[in-house]
């Protein structure tokens, strides 16, 4: 341990003494953290910033990477989408970071994407999202729709016998895509059009009276009804409150959510929510050694035993571990080499099994469905048998079902049309 630290330290001293950049190898490896610390998204993103910092700290205690220490560079894009692009450029050009962990919303990722592609940066995106994208420079460690939405609907259909569906979401691209995929999927499974109700609300919507009453009305037609919710962050609290107050019980009309995790629940009075569902790749309540260790480390790092862990944190964890392994394998932080080494990397999931990075830059992960408990945790009621491979391009959308992403030779393309055998939409 000591010698491990001593060597780079010595080298660092030497290089400083010589003053040249010949020994730049021993400089710290810079890890950029691009998560909003203020503005509307700070609620979710600041936790991920802390997660990356914790991982960096752990890695440094374990001797760094390639014998070099890691240094986190934190910036605040302030929930301002153009600022994400600017900060990404700052991280890559000014700070010369070797990797970026960042973004939460799709629009922030879309804003950053051209920058990391232009400057050939490397980025890890840790949140469940709508798919329909695969960039050479981005690794998507959150769930694609087929790793969250489709299994959840399968569960509702097969295990709970749901016949009538409310697809409620916030009006932006993730719910729109997910609902489109689900609508196509449900219709494929014989659900009639009048048994699907789709509703969109603005961000931070707070007055749910009419919508919940519509849902109640829709659900009173005598068929088992469920709500598939892609309602985002802030709007959930008033939504669930209204559900509870209008006496919509989880056993009558269960709500399965894709954006409500432990973190969100920690800000909600969960009493009226008990029994409602969420689909994720990770729950804090899952009992495993790796998970216990992770939770303990998190509590120690934050100094707060009541802090919860959640799915995007696990995605950050897996992404970080994979990146470290890929850098060690490649023997360099050079982006192209690391990118090539990333594919096929395996890291144990916190919930058991192995997460594998596929050639389309998406992970294979297990899917879990949990019921909300009154302590703000989830009780797993269903899970997939093995892992599900993330699908970058949905098979249920007419415009993308012939598209695949494969970043290995000979295809080497994020947007490859298997019918025309052409690669399109690539910038670099």
């Amino acid at each position, binding site marked *: 341990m000591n010698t491990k630290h001593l060597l780079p330290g010595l080298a660092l001293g030497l290089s400083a003494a010589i003053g040249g950049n010949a020994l730049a190898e021993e400089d710290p490896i810079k890890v950029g953290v691009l998560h909003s610390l203020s503005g509307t998204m700070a609620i979710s993103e600041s936790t991920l910033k802390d997660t990356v910092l914790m991982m960096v700290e752990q890695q440094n205690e374990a001797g760094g990477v390639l014998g070099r220490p890691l240094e986190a560079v934190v910036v605040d894009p302030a929930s301002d989408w153009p600022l994400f692009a600017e900060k990404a450029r700052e991280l890559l050009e000014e700070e010369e970071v070797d990797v970026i962990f960042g973004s939460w919303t799709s629009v922030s990722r879309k804003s950053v994407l051209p920058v990391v592609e232009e400057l050939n940066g490397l980025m890890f995106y840790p949140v469940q999202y709508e798919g329909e994208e695969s960039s050479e420079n981005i690794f998507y460690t959150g769930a694609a729709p087929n790793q969250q939405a489709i299994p959840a609907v399968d569960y509702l259909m097969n295990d709970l016998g749901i016949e009538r569906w409310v697809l409620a979401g916030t009006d932006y691209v993730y719910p729109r895509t997910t609902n489109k995929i689900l609508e196509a999927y449900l219709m494929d499974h014989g659900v009639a059009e009048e048994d699907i109700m789709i509703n969109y609300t603005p961000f931070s919507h707070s007055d749910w009276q*009419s919508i919940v009453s519509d849902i109640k009305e829709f659900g009173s037609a005598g068929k088992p009804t469920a709500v598939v919710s892609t309602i985002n962050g802030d709007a959930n609290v008033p939504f669930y*409150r209204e559900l509870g107050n209008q006496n919509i019980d989880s056993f009558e009309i269960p709500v399965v959510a894709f954006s409500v995790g432990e973190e969100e629940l920690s800000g909600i009075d969960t009493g009226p929510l008990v029994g409602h569902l969420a689909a994720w790749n990770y729950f804090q309540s899952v009992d495993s050694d790796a998970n216990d260790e992770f939770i303990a480390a998190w509590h120690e790092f934050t100094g707060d035993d009541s802090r919860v862990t959640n799915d995007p944190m696990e995605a950050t964890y897996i992404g970080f571990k994979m990146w470290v392994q890929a850098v060690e394998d490649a023997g360099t932080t050079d982006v192209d080499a690391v990118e090539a080494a990333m594919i096929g990397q395996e890291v144990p999931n916190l919930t058991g099994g192995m997460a594998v990075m596929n050639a389309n830059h998406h992970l294979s992960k297990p899917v879990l469905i949990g019921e909300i408990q009154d302590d703000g945790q989830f009780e797993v009621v269903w899970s997939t048998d093995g892992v599900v491979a993330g699908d970058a391009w949905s098979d249920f959308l007419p415009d993308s079902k012939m598209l695949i992403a494969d970043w290995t030779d000979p295809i080497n393309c994020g947007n490859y049309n298997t019918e025309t055998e052409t690669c399109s939409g690539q910038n670099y």
Partner: protein
Amino acid sequence: MKRLCLWATLWLLTSTALAESLFEQRLGELTEASLAETQSLLEALEAEGDPRLLPLFDALFNGNLYYRDADQTLVAADPNTGDAPYIGILSGEVIASLNEDNVTKVRVNNRLRRYLNDALARLKLTAPDPAIREAAVNELLTQLNADTIAQLDVLRADEQNAKVQQALDTALNLYTAQSSDQVGARVQAIGELSSSLQNAVRNALARLAEDEDAPEAVQNAAAESLNSIEQKFTFYGYVDQLFFGLSLGSVLLLAAFGLAITFGVMGVINMAHGEMLMLGAYTTFVVQQLMPNAINQSIWVAIPMAFLVAGSVGVLIERCVIRFLHGRPLETLLATFGISLILQQLVRTIFSPLNRRVVAPDWLSGSWQINPALSLTFNRLYILIFALIVFALLVLIMKKTALGLQVRAVSQNRAMAKAMGIKTDWVDALTFGLGSGIAGVGGVALSQLTNVGPNLGQSYIIDSFMVVVFGGVGNLYGTLVAAFSLGVANKFLEPITGTVLATTLVLVFIILFIQKRPKGLFPQRGRAAE
């Protein structure tokens, strides 16, 4: 000797087990069954028909069923607290030694809850409380079959309570309407059903009206009854919408009260107003943290506390910043905007950027079921009443107290008021404090509806300004009318245009309205207002 004892115990055990029932044996299995096995186990238990089923199912349904870790004795937690005192299911007595550390919860999922809900309805048909009996009958409407009907028939004969009788009649009629082989009886039953507002009835009639196999007379009768039911539903739908609108209005009103004072009366473009709401909401959170065992009462502490906290911050702001900006209203905007940024970040630093959990007191949860087609949620109802009370108090303060008189005097003619001996500085500080304090009180109400987080204020600031400007600056009645009319307009537009467009249209309407009547609905009259 020892052996004898053992034998005796064993004999006793087996004999009681034989004598008492399979019930207890099955019950023992409950703690070990997987979720998938539980339902068949519960069905078996129900078949045994034991009087202890009701407390058992009730506890399980509500997530209050636990077992003692030591010997797996089943106990029910207190339904109000969710933990001690625990009551033994078999013994029916309090087991004092138990607390949350030495019991484990029996798991349920939605499928079990659904089964339990129906089973409880069956069990509660003979409950002593007529309201419970009535609810149980209504719950059974979706699962009528020959067995339950036979049971209901018997119950109907002995039933004394008119409401329960009515519910039973509905159930019997519904069954007849669907399953009788005599067309006449069916038509008559369908006719009787036209006065029911039960969803199950409505659905059954809708099915009958469409049913090709049913005799034409039945179809027609069903269509007719359905029509009259639908009319009632439409009417109650409007009542619902009106209530939603008034409720939204009351929220706008609570959010705008403070601004009606700081902006309306003092002319300060108070961009930090939203943060006063936020402070009120956070105060509610802190108060709940301080008195975790008295959540139901905490709100009565939170209201005055929120007033004090937000009010004193308001006085502080007035003393340190606003008073230097008299007569420069547009500049107050800049300064208070800065203050709002600081306050938000302050809250973020102290309480973290995460939302905080504010628990709703029991009496604010649930809804008041007027009839099956119309129910008003309690929290909305109370908030509506609360808004009106605050309004009345505010009007009282402004019209009847010395402070109110002075405030009005200063806002109308500062120099003259000062000449009359009014301490204008003092009045300014108090007015701003009052406005901020009232905003804090509004925040308490908002904490019951929405997120308590650093961005809480921002989501209400624009709405608040709209309400005050639309109503006419400086006029409390204007604010009241504006809030309710905007709320109602919004809610009646929403089903037609969707949520976002409704809000947008209302905004466009306000913009055009202000162009037409620049001083709002109720402009202040007289020279002073110029």
